[in-house]
């Protein structure tokens, strides 16, 4: 018997690994690549700071921090990070030291370069500011005195002779010059005026060039100013104001010659600085380009190292035996591969004498649930898992959902035109899979669509099928095989205004001379006859048909679900549950609703057009069956509500009684079984107890532990709820399947409304030419609305309803969903997670 199948999760084994300390690292690395082993934390109570490999982890984190710094520097320079798609092996522990040294050195170098370059830049900016300061103050002074000799001889008109006198009188007129950013100039000026009570004179000019701010790297407009004033007191005040407004004060020699000299010196210094700055920049660029080539590999290596040490922290450290003990879940079918990987791991570490020991242990613990999946089944499994992860070895509904989900969706979304568009979209995603895989990773909506591309593809294909059955293509029917109806009225009837009735019966019309067969006798080969498209009672007809489809599909799916529960009972050897749960459940469902389906098929197949009025009204018959009241068969009661086959009364009464018997059967069956079992057990355990006391076996105790007795009242309550849930559920779930009809009706009507409201504007225009242009315009609106309302909105609603029908109506019959997922230790998934975080 094969242990793996798509119907159940993989069989798991709890294993103990005895790892030699030397071989542990490389063995775990091998398992990380293999990614089929889930480790259990053996020190759950140990704080993460007290674990064995906390030092290594800390070193890794330090390195990661440095790498993040390097990366941000690279991004600042807009250098592309090389992605070679290479997957390096986890480095050996001794390589860690090399890596650390390399990253440390780079980090140090870069920081050094950065501080140097910052200082140089700062210096450069200051000197530039000073240069402009000098040049512009020169301008101010020259305005005053073209000769440039002694600027205080005569100032502007504002500072008049008075000042001159004061200068000559010993009072020195001083000035402060500096550079301030343009935004602050206004308030600076006002402040100066107020604080100095108007005793200063300010001249300013804008620097024609933008000056870079060394801290933020932004370029800003700056203004050169000169403040003239009198006296030391004012000078300190002005300096304080300058400080407050973050203006940089630069000294400016009073003498014109000195100024010129200083300017000359400045120029040479600036040139030198420029050269140095460029060289530093080149050096930095070279280092960063070098780093950008390796940084991705380093990141992967670090993540791997970190995850290995993190895993090793979960191990038990057996000092006496000098080995690590790990516990892990492994799918039984992969045990061989794990053993190979472990052997390879110890070979890599050079430790050949003592290899890792893999020891299988038995446990009462519930193993994790692991399904073997591929890219096709993954999406459907996600739908199931969103409700609850399957209990261990429980029947996995995924393989059934794979078909029923797109089918139920399509029943509600039945339109071949819409289905075709959905299919084309999904087909594009499937065919361009490899190309699209890495696109739009951070766009959530796109990720959802792309992740469900196979689901969407199947939904689209099924929609085309149901669309053909409903004969709806963008709400229009297609007459592919020729309608089975021929309109063969004579002119008298046709020329009368109003509707005519097409009768399937061979009944002569009053106006016609002789009867003409209008229905060919052979039904339309597939789906609805296109003649319904132009008939007035189309909805009445499709409603009746679609409602019956919905009930038939629903009952079939629910009883299938109940049969799946039989599979679970058999597999888990709960034979009592077959008799106490499965049989009453299925009998109840089939004796009422299964019977209804039989009646539906009976009605469809036996009543011909001539007896159409006599056909039984099934809803009334069902109600009568419940009430056990049957109308008397006389001429007054319509034929449709009278019994229509022999012994109908007796058969229906028996079915009803059987169904009613199922209720107490299900309600008290299981609790009574449990009571009986417990009685038996107490009798036998008394014996065991006497023996075990003698043998004094400790392990006996452990094994008994999980069999904790549940209180009997709890069993009763639980079974009561379960029973009510099932029987009420059968009725409400059957009604719930009517949503298949309701949504399909809504979809068909909506698309018809869209066609008549929008596209008909263009179609109704007569004449050749204008109508074509109108069609061209109107089609844009129609196609956009079709995509957004009919495909996206209606599609989403049909999707959600299909999902609900599976989760609630179908899976509640057999699916527990109480398991927990198998999360193997895998480098690949850890790397993907890390990539998603960025």
């Amino acid at each position, binding site marked *: 018997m094969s242990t793996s199948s798509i119907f159940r999760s993989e069989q798991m084994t709890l294993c103990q690994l005895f790892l030699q300390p030397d071989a542990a690292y490389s063995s775990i690395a091998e398992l990380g690549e293999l990614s089929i082993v889930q480790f259990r934390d053996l020190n759950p109570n140990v704080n993460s700071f007290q674990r064995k490999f906390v030092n290594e982890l800390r070193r890794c984190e330090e390195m990661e921090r440095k790498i993040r710094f390097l990366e941000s520097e690279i991004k600042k320079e807009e250098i592309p990070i090389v992605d070679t798609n290479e997957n390096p092996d986890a480095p050996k522990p001794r390589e860690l030291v090399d890596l650390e040294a390399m990253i440390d050195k780079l980090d140090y170098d870069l920081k050094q370069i950065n501080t140097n370059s910052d200082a140089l830049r*700062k*210096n450069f*900016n*200051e*000197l530039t500011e*000073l240069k402009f300061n000098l040049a512009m103050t020169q301008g101010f002074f020259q305005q005053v005195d073209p000769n440039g000799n002694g600027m205080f001889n005569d100032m502007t008109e504002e500072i008049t002779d008075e000042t001159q006198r004061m200068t000559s009188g010993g009072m020195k007129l001083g000035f402060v010059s*500096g550079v301030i*950013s*343009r*935004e*602050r100039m206004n308030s600076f000026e006002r402040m100066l005026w107020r604080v100095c009570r108007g005793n200063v004179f300010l001249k300013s000019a804008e620097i024609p060039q933008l000056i870079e*701010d*060394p*801290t*933020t790297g*932004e370029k*800003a407009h700056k203004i050169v100013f000169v403040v003239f004033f009198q006296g030391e007191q004012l000078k300190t005040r002005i300096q304080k104001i300058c400080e407050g407004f*973050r203006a*940089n*004060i*630069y*000294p400016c020699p009073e003498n014109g010659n000195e100024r010129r000299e*200083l300017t000359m*010196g*400045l120029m040479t210094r600036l040139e030198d600085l420029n050269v140095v700055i460029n060289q530093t920049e080149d050096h930095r660029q070279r280092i960063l380009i070098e780093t950008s080539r390796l940084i991705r590999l380093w990141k992967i290596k670090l993540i791997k190292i970190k995850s290995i040490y993190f895993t090793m922290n979960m191990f038990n450290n057996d000092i006496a035996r000098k080995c690590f003990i790990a516990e892990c879940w492994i799918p039984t079918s992969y045990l061989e591969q794990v053993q190979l990987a472990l052997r390879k791991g110890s070979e890599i570490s050079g430790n050949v004498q003592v290899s890792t020991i893999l020891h299988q242990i038995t446990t009462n613990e519930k193993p994790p649930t692991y399904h073997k999946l591929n890219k096709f089944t993954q999406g459907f499994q996600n739908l199931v898992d969103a409700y609850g992860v399957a209990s261990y070895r429980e029947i996995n509904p995924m393989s059934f959902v794979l078909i029923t989900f797109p089918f139920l969706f399509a029943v509600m979304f039945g339109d071949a035109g819409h289905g075709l*568009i959905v299919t084309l979209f999904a087909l594009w995603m499937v065919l361009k899979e490899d190309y699209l895989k890495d696109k739009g990773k951070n766009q959530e909506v796109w990720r959802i669509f792309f992740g469900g591309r196979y689901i969407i593809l199947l939904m689209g294909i099924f929609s085309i099928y149901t669309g053909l059955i409903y004969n709806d293509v963008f709400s*229009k*029917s*297609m*007459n592919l095989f020729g*309608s089975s109806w021929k309109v063969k009225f004579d*002119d008298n009837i046709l*020329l009368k205004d109003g509707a005519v009735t097409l009768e399937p019966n061979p009944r002569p019309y009053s106006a016609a001379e002789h009867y003409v067969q209008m229905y060919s006798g052979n039904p339309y080969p597939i789906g609805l006859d*296109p*003649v319904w*498209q*132009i008939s007035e009672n189309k909805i009445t007809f499709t409603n009746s048909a679609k409602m019956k489809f919905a009930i038939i599909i629903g009952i079939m799916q629910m009883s299938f679900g109940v049969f799946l529960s039989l599979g679970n009972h058999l597999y888990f050897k709960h034979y009592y549950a077959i008799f106490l749960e499965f049989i009453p459940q299925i009998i109840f469902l089939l004796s009422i609703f299964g019977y209804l389906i039989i009646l539906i098929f009976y009605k469809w197949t036996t009543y011909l057009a001539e007896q159409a009025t006599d056909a039984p009204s099934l809803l009334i018959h069902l109600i009568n069956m419940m009430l056990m009241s049957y109308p008397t068969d006389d001429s007054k009661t319509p034929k449709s509500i009278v019994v229509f086959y022999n012994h109908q009364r007796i058969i229906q009464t028996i079915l009803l009684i059987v169904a009613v018997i199922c209720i107490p059967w299900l309600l008290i069956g299981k609790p009574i079984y449990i009571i009986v079992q417990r009685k038996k057990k107490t009798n036998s355990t008394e014996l065991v107890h006497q023996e075990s006391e003698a043998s004094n076996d400790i392990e006996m105790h452990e094994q008994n532990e999980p069999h904790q007795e549940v209180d009997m009242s709890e069993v009763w309550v639980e079974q009561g709820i379960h029973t009510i849930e099932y029987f009420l559920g059968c009725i409400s779930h059957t009604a719930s399947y009517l949503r298949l009809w309701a949504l399909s009706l809504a979809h068909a009507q909506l698309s018809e409304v869209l*066609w*008549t409201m929008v*596209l*008909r504007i*263009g*179609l*109704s*225009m*007569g*004449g*050749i*030419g204008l*109508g*074509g*242009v*109108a*069609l*061209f315009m109107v*089609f*844009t609106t129609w*196609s*956009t609305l079709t995509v957004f309302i009919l495909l996206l909105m209606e599609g989403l609603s049909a999707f959600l309803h299909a999902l609900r029908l599976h989760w609630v109506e179908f899976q509640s019959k057999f699916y527990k969903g109480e398991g927990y997922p198998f999360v193997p230790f895998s480098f690949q998934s850890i790397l993907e997670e890390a990539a998603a975080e960025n």
Partner: protein
Amino acid sequence: MKLQWPICGPKLSLCCSIISVWGIVQFLLMGVFFYMEAAPLLDDFEFDHNTTNTKVFRDNLSSAYNQRAHNCWIAAFLYVGLLVIAGSQFMTNQKQLVETGQPTSMAPRFSDLAADENGFNRQYQMQYNSEQTE
């Protein structure tokens, strides 16, 4: 002729191209169906049916169907034109994307306007050091 500059962006041109392809296919088929005088399409237009002559009635119906068929084909033709324009725009956009590595879009042109220009928030730590100038 290749348009050298993109009038519409990559998304709009792609959208227009897809709608055009859809429109061409649908209108060609609808034209054929109207030409064949398919009954399900009868609801979509009015025609003069207040006549007692069967032949006149038939002729009116045929000509109404025929007009719709031609209108559909005209619409299909117009969509061929749109497809040529939108397709060439899409190609131009793709080419620019390959050449510059930057999608032609309005966003980057205005993105720098949003940057914070408030100089008062900046830190000016620089103080003049007289030794530097000497």
